[in-house]
């Protein structure tokens, strides 16, 4: 069934979604995702997603930033054009700390944002889930759970039955 992207169940509240997500995951579905108008504590764990690698990216960014910052200053002041400035030594490290710090924060911060976007695969203006009409309330007051057709256990009729078992407001197909 290649023209179905998945099945989407709509829920009333975060509590329902949470419960549904946990059951779906327990019953062996893996290619699933949950959608909510605001972050819900523990929801991602419920669908079996534990490790976001954002902090690592930020750490890397910060280290690169620091190295760049200090390196630049050291190179400029002692190698590129050594100059006697106010009788201070060429390598006056205390003065170099500030720029180093700022560069650390800059690189770290940018790494955080772009890392997050990258890992989330954003920007992604087009996505099949938007085909579901009711999904527009996912950014307002509705909660959705989606099982994707890529899941080995996926099978339209069966999965629909399973989802309806979770007492959603509705279940709808997500066309490709």
């Amino acid at each position: 069934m290649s023209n179905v992207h998945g099945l989407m169940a709509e829920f009333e509240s975060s509590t329902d979604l949470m419960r549904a997500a946990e059951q779906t995951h327990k019953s062996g579905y893996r290619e699933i995702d949950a959608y909510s108008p605001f972050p819900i504590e523990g929801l991602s764990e419920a669908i079996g997603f534990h490790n976001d690698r954002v902090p690592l990216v930020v750490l890397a960014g910060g280290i690169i930033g620091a190295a760049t910052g200090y390196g630049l200053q050291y190179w400029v002041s002692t190698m590129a054009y050594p100059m006697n400035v106010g009788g201070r030594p060429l390598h006056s490290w205390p003065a170099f700390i500030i720029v180093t710090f700022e560069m650390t924060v800059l690189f770290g911060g940018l790494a955080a944002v772009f890392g997050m976007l990258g890992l989330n695969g954003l920007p992604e203006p087009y996505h099949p889930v938007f085909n579901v009409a009711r999904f527009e309330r996912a950014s307002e007051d509705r909660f959705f759970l989606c099982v994707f057709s890529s899941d080995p256990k996926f099978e339209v009729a069966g999965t629909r039955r399973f989802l309806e078992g979770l007492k959603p407001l509705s279940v709808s197909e997500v066309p490709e």
Partner: protein
Amino acid sequence: MMMDPETKKQREDVCPGKKLELATVQAELAKVQGPEYWRSLEELAGSSEFREMMHREFPKGASEWVDAVSRRGFLRLMGASMALAGMTACTRQPVEPIVPYAKQPEEIIPGRPLFFATAMTLGGCAQPLLVESHMGRPTKAEGNPEHPAGLAGSDIFAQASLLDMYDPDRAQHPALLGDTRSWKAFSDAIRGPLASQKAVGGEGLRLLTPPVSSPTLADQLRALLQMFPKAKWHQYSPLHRDAVLGGAQMAFGQPVETQYRLEGADVVLSLDADFLAPTFPGALRLTRDFVARRNPDAAMNRLYVVETAPSPTGAKADHRLPLRAAEVEKFARALASALGISAGASTLSGEEAKWLATVVQELQAHHGASVVICGEHQPAAVHALAHAINERLGNAGRTVIYTETVHASPVDQTNSLRELVADMRAGKVEMLFILGGNPVYDAPADLDFASALKDSKIPVTVYHGLYENETAQLCPWFTHDAHYLEAWSDGRACDGTISVVQPLIAPLYEGRSVHELLAMMMGQGGVTGYEIVRDYWQKQNKAGDFEAAWRRALHDGFMAGTAYAPQAVTVKAANFGAAAADDSGLELNFRRDPCVLDGSLANNGWLQELPKPMSKMTWDNPAWIGPGMAQRLGLKSEDVVELELNGKKVRNAVWVQAGHADNAVTVFLGYGRRRAGRAGSGAGFDVYPLRTSDAPWRASGVKLSKTGDTYKLASTQGYQTIDTEVGAKPVMRAGSLEEYKQHPEFAQEMVEAPTPGLTLYPNVNYGKDPNFNALGYAWGMAIDQNSCVGCNACMVACVSENNIAVVGKEQVVRGRHMHWIRVDAYYQGDRANPSAYFQPVPCMQCENAPCELVCPVGATTHSTEGLNDMVYNRCIGTRYCSNNCPYKVRRFNFLLFQDFETPQLKMMRNPDVSVRSRGVMEKCTYCVQRINQARIESEKDDREIRDGEIQTACQQACPAGAIIFGNVNDKNSKVAKLKAQARNYSMLADLNTRPRTTYLAEVRNPNPELAG
């Protein structure tokens, strides 16, 4: 430059019918657009009519337009937009032309300056000079160290004369009633009348000149008078020394010049004589000899000064007694009587009596080794007394010598002018030649020369001068003079030595020297100034090889052995007139302005912007009053008062000057010029209307009344006392000889400097090091405050050497003057009679320079030889360096101060120094261009730079030798030795900036009798 109604009125009636209405201007400008518009606006702004119009239409804001700087503002707008356009194309340079000679004079090597010896005559006294010339353009004047009168160093007038020479406002062609004429037209015009005069023996021919010291000119005049036996030659200068000559006449029965030999004087008493100021005859020599005796480690002399208005001499005094000019005479008489000279009884009050007693005692104690100097503002009687006193003290022939006068035929100039005016009014004058001077502006008010000139319908009057000034206005014929750097002449130095004045450049505007004019009058048309001067001397020197002597004279700049020999004269006078009756009326004193003198230098921007020694005033001549009087009358500086003397009224701003005698006002001549030029016109107040022939220097019973107006004054030193609210600041250090003897390091220990170990970073080692400072030079400077007499020569020299811009009064008021070196004047103690100190402040070239640390782009960094380099083209103008400079020696181009348009000014500039544009910081560089030149030369012939080989401009100009520059790593260099002295201290040493410029603390030598 807000103008008081007085000047404004006069302004309008000097050029009647030439009024410009705003509407007309707008119409004018409507005709053109685009850049054209700005150009024509520029031309307009230059014209005097426009300036008047502006003053009529916008009395207040006018300055914005007329101000020397902002006047070019609009042009600059265009310039700036160009700059922006340029910036879009990164730093692309336009393709520049390069123009070689067609036929190159063989002595010229492109890029190398030549030096010529010449001389400048000012106030009848020739000052020998060496003038630097780049590719035929004179660029810098220096003193001539070879000259017998010991004239190393120079003064502000010599330095600033360069700007006069290039002054774009100078007259550029002869004129009849203001319309351009050719020289030929002029000579044709006078030929007829002269011929008819010749017929009547010159009955109606009159000449008016300033005093003449040029032998050639004197000879020409004699020749002329032989040709026209009945003609009369009158002399007048507002700064005449009638009283001095009168004194000599009274004392010796003959006019003699007095010269002082201060090297032999242990005690010096000045009776209102400002002999350390460059305006005093022979001041350079006097300064040198005086400071030679101020070394606290040798026999130090002691200076007593009795004066009315504070002067540099008073500032250097060990004891100063402020007295009204009239009381100075009383003092002199009392002194004379005390020494047993019958000078008429005169009594002094307690304090002054004690003072006098001490002085008498001192003078007698140093028989033959003292000197009493009398100021030219004192009446003849006092001069005579001074002669008598010097004789009585055995100084005559020792510390005081008498010679022939420098002036060719000395006369009582006031009388001379009086006679002329009488003849004019009597209609006896048919032909009047005014050769220089500016009598319409500066003649005594009671003679009313101007109206005499207007009323008496003289058929032919000719004014010959550098500027079309007030006098030229009233003389139908005007012929333009040649500047001394443009024409041949000669003159006598104050010791009589003859100098040849040789030109460095052909007249910029075909001006002709007075020699050539006289030749023309005597029908010797076509003869050149060179021929005139040379022929004269050839006649003088029949014997011997003239050619060689002449060449030598031109090379050396003077004729050796022509100094006057001392004359043996004895005081014949028995009575010295009666002491003037006491009068308690308010006394009015006239003084020449220390910068623009009688007004003849009023259009010299360098001098206008030069802070006057004591008040640090620029661009103005406020009337001085003492603090006590100010308090009584509730006056403060910048109040406008009205001075009334026998009917004549003059408005003037007030400056409360610490140390000024009480119950007296001092006004300064030379301001309120109406036709001086862009810089001079409208600046300050004209006080000549109060000056009469019988009271040229001192008048009594002047009425002073508050007007309630105020007037903005541009003093560069806002705060003049060294004691602040919370105590004396450790900036400037001085002590008494006693202190020094007991405790030589007193200055160093006034402030504790942190030990190097206290700082986080080790100090940079500026020793010889093949990988750092390969040649091992470490440049430094020592300034001896004991020697500095505050003459400001260093400032103008610096301006001239380093192409420093003139910014105009408006900008000075805003604190934006550009001087790289300044001479601070500090007052300490009782405001009525404080002790004053001078402190020249160039860049300190700190080893731990605070300015460098904070520059974001590294535009100011340290050279390996310890110079605090400033790279203008790298500077982006954050002004952080200036904020962080504790010495405040950095200067910022807040606007486009430099004139990039006027061709004359471009010719004047020193090609070895960048001309700074808008938005960049600048400061003293220790004349790095001179250092580099010397280093390159020394490297080429593989030797070390000799001590003294490099002289900074300020050092070279200093007549007192107070500034010493050199290599501090060389322990035998003069500067290193000075820095090793106990008196040596660093300004603000506690900041650990480690300045390369240090000071030798001032040591005064007060008399214990009077101390306390």
